[in-house]
């Protein structure tokens, strides 16, 4: 059985090698430092499916003494077919020495059969200091692909294309920080073009990554659905003595109810981040605080993510009409659809009225003159829509975030704009699922169905959609 392909990510220091690896391996543990020489040892990132390795990425140290290496190789040049042997001889001569530790470390996996992924920064100009690196890599005789990783704003990509085209059969532009999942997959497919025998394992790997991506999206949707289910069935209660004033205790109970709702939402966010292997997201940074600042109960959240009054009116009227219609049916139509009309009106009015309050607090009498205050479950029809809207935004940002991206999770005005308006069909489907949860017939089953609907919404978000008007 042939060895699975491996790819050594090489290049000048500080040109984004580790970022590329971090993004392709979905690994936020990769140290991406500013100082040249942050990476001093090769680090292997095998892509495995059920323990079987399909390919391996190797993060390598950058070239440090490329000209000296190149001069050594030139001094030992024989014929073109023996150039790889010259590189092997270089490794043999310096493997244990102090002079070329970085070059030995990066050339070893290549001479062991790895394909070359040469990374440069497309935002800085090409310079002659790269020539030696390019020549050394050419001498290795291994399949090579160049990646132009534009780290900054300036654009020198065309110059780089011209230079790199002379040494590499495939030259691609790939921004490790902004590349979405589709671009990552395309790049992996390009790896398969380097060598015929690599095409099939890379294709299998891509297929598995796509399936895995779908599963993660579904898992994230289930996490959000569970949170919404918990919120829609949540109660908070407090027992007070005969001498206590229940009205004075109500605000505290509502605040407690809100705090618990927010806690459920926070846990769901952490779960979604974990599902996408973002373990160290700094959520205290201002950008994420911007999301939190749009507090669940602030007007902004409700306005941006909730239903409009017209939508609320529609959903309430349909629900009420359905109940009224049952009465019409029971009397064999003798009511001339009065039940449907009245039910629709009552339903719409009740929904609009309830939309202004998060939760009702009931005061129940219990033995010994005491009273029990019970807040929830919330009958606010807008609540799950707001929670889902916020979850959509969070999911879109987390799912689209590369593992090379450092810093906080940025949620800004344009981030809100990235979400398309949820299609009416999807909106109705999730509303129906919310209804099942409120009805409480089978929370487990209803949560499962809601999860499937949300997975569809998340899938549409990732696949693009209409821009939301805010």
């Amino acid at each position, binding site marked *: 059985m042939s060895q699975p392909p491996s790819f050594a990510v090489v290049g*000048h*220091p*500080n040109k984004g090698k580790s970022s590329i690896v971090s993004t392709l*391996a*979905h*690994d936020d*543990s*990769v*140290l991406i430092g*500013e*100082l*040249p*020489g*942050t*990476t001093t*040892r090769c*680090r*292997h*990132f*095998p*892509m*495995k*499916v*059920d*323990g079987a390795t399909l390919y391996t990425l190797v993060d390598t140290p950058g070239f*440090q*003494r490329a*000209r*000296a290496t190149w*001069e050594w190789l030139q001094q030992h040049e024989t014929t073109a077919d023996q150039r790889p042997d010259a590189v092997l001889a270089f490794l043999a001569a310096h493997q244990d020495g102090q002079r070329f530790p*970085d070059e030995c470390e990066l050339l070893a996996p290549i001479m062991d059969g790895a394909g070359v992924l040469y990374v440069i920064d497309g935002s*800085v*100009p090409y*310079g*002659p*200091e790269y*020539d*030696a690196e390019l020549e050394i890599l050419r001498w290795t005789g291994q399949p090579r692909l160049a990646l132009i990783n534009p780290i900054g704003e*300036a654009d020198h990509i065309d110059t780089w294309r011209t230079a790199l085209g002379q040494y590499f059969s495939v030259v691609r532009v790939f921004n490790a920080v902004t590349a979405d999942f589709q671009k990552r997959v395309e790049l992996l497919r390009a790896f398969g073009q380097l060598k015929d025998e690599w095409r099939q394992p890379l294709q299998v790997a891509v297929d*598995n*990554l796509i*399936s*895995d991506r779908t*599963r993660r999206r*579904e*898992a994230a949707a*289930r996490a959000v659905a569970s949170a919404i289910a918990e919120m829609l*069935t949540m109660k908070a209660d407090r027992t007070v003595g005969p001498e206590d004033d229940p009205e004075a205790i109500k605000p505290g109970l509502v605040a407690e109810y809100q705090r618990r709702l927010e806690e459920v939402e926070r846990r769901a966010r952490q779960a979604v981040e*974990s*599902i996408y*292997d973002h373990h160290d997201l700094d959520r205290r940074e201002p950008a994420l605080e911007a999301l939190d600042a749009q507090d669940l109960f602030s007007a902004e959240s409700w306005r941006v993510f909730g239903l409009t009054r017209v939508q609320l009116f529609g959903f309430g009227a349909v629900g009420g009409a359905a109940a009224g219609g*049952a009465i019409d049916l*029971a009397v064999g139509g003798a009511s001339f659809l009065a039940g449907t009309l009245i039910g629709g009106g009552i339903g719409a009015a009740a929904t609009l009225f309830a939309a202004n309050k998060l939760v009702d607090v009931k005061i129940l009498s219990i033995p010994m003159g005491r009273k029990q205050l019970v807040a929830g479950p919330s009958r606010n029809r807008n609540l799950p829509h707001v929670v889902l809207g916020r979850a959509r935004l969070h999911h879109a940002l987390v799912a689209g975030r590369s593992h090379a991206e450092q810093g906080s999770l940025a949620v800004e005005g344009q981030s809100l704009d990235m979400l398309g308006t949820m299609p009416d069909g999807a909106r109705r489907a999730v509303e129906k699922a919310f209804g099942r949860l409120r009805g409480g*017939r*089978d*929370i*487990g*089953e209803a949560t*499962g169905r809601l*999860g499937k609907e949300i997975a569809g919404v998340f899938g549409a978000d990732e696949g693009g959609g209409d821009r939301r008007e805010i």
Partner: protein
Amino acid sequence: MSTPRTQPTLGDLLDLAQQLDLDAAASGSTLRHRDRPIGQDLAHHERRPLQQLLGWLHRVRELGKSPRGDRVNTVHRLGLLVAALAGLAAGWGTAAVVFFYDGTHPVNVIHVLAVFVLLPLVLLVFFGFSLLPRRVTRFVPGMGAVQDAMGLLSPGRLQHLMARYLPQGYRDTLASLLGKGQAHQKLYGRVDRWVATHTSQTFALAFNVGALVSCLYLITFSDLAFSWSTTLQFDATRLKQWTDVLSAPWSFFFADARPSHELIASTRYFRLGDGSFPAAQSPSGLGGWWPFLVMCMAVYGVLPRLLTLWLAQARMRVALRQTFLHFPGLDDVRMRLNSELVETRAEEPERDGERLATGGSLTEQANVAGLPGIVIAWSAAAPDRGLFQTWLAGAAGIAVDGWHEAGGTRSLNNDRAAMDAAVAQDGNLFVVVKAWEPPMAEFLDFLSELRAAAGDRRAIHVLPVGTTRDGSPSVAESRHHDLWYRVLTGLGDPWLSLTRLGSDDV
């Protein structure tokens, strides 16, 4: 290693809830690595989720701490046993009262039929009401309240009540399950309802069995005399019609258990007068009712409760299966079991830190204005010499007395030659570098050799310069300057300076 069950129990439900709570605190990677091998072992159950999940739970339980589910099962079985014993005792006692005969007044058949036929049939109707789903009863005013009241009176509540009298360990276990039930009332409600129904039907069956056994005991070991007596306008012919209806189910195979007209007519009893039996009736004839009564108790008491117990048990099993399968979080478990384990992360932890020392000293922003200088342009940092010299004079007032090229495409020997030529000239040494390219070992080697050639105390100024879009020199970006500063500081050369040309303070 014990084998997994094929039907979930209450204990499994509790263990499942506990396991999923524990899993919520574990990382996704840990769970995937734990569950995928189990899933591969249970791949033959992939299309039978219940079996697969029970198998998974069984395996995970073996890996973890001792489960509490078995204790819940014990409590549940104990509850059933108590209900059965209580039912047997109540049935036996009731029969002993109804069949009481001390030789003075015979056992009234009408009593027996009322207690062991009519009452069970009425209770069966109530039982049927209690089974109606809420979505049906909510349309009938008051029906929900009736159902709640029946729930309160149900012997099934025994399962909850008896928990108070159990040892502490069992109480904790049950409280855990019931507490979970309160938190997720709607989720566990269906199971709770059928567990209570199953217990109540166990009691009911035991009651009827107890009564039947008691009846048979009295018949066997005493001389019961039966008659019938009622104030209602009921003659023997009418009663015969009723007994025929009641005995219809067995009359075709057990004719002796169908009372004859003669028996009915001859066993009517009036307490008025002398209160004695009809003179024509022989003592053995007074016992002729028992086959009919025994069959009534068996067919209208025991048999229906056998069926309702079977129904309750079947529905409880369905409820357990449904609740188990729809338990929040199980979809994720199934995904981990049945989906390929895809891994892309590094196997070994990150080992490297920033290896360059940041100690040492470096003169930053040396005052180079007006100094004559020898320039070494590193790696084509100033491709247009004339343009650069003009910029240098304008930005820092440096007059260039000598110009040398090193690095880039030039050989190492050329570097050394340029270095020797530069140090041979008097004046400050200025090494111009591209600010955007990081200082690499190759450059640091060059600086080290330059220091050796120039000797101590001779100033060497490193000047990182930026570039504009058209290639003209410009001030270095501060982030690039900072990087150069951090690296050069590590060299510890007190006569080395780093100067950002074009900055305001130059």
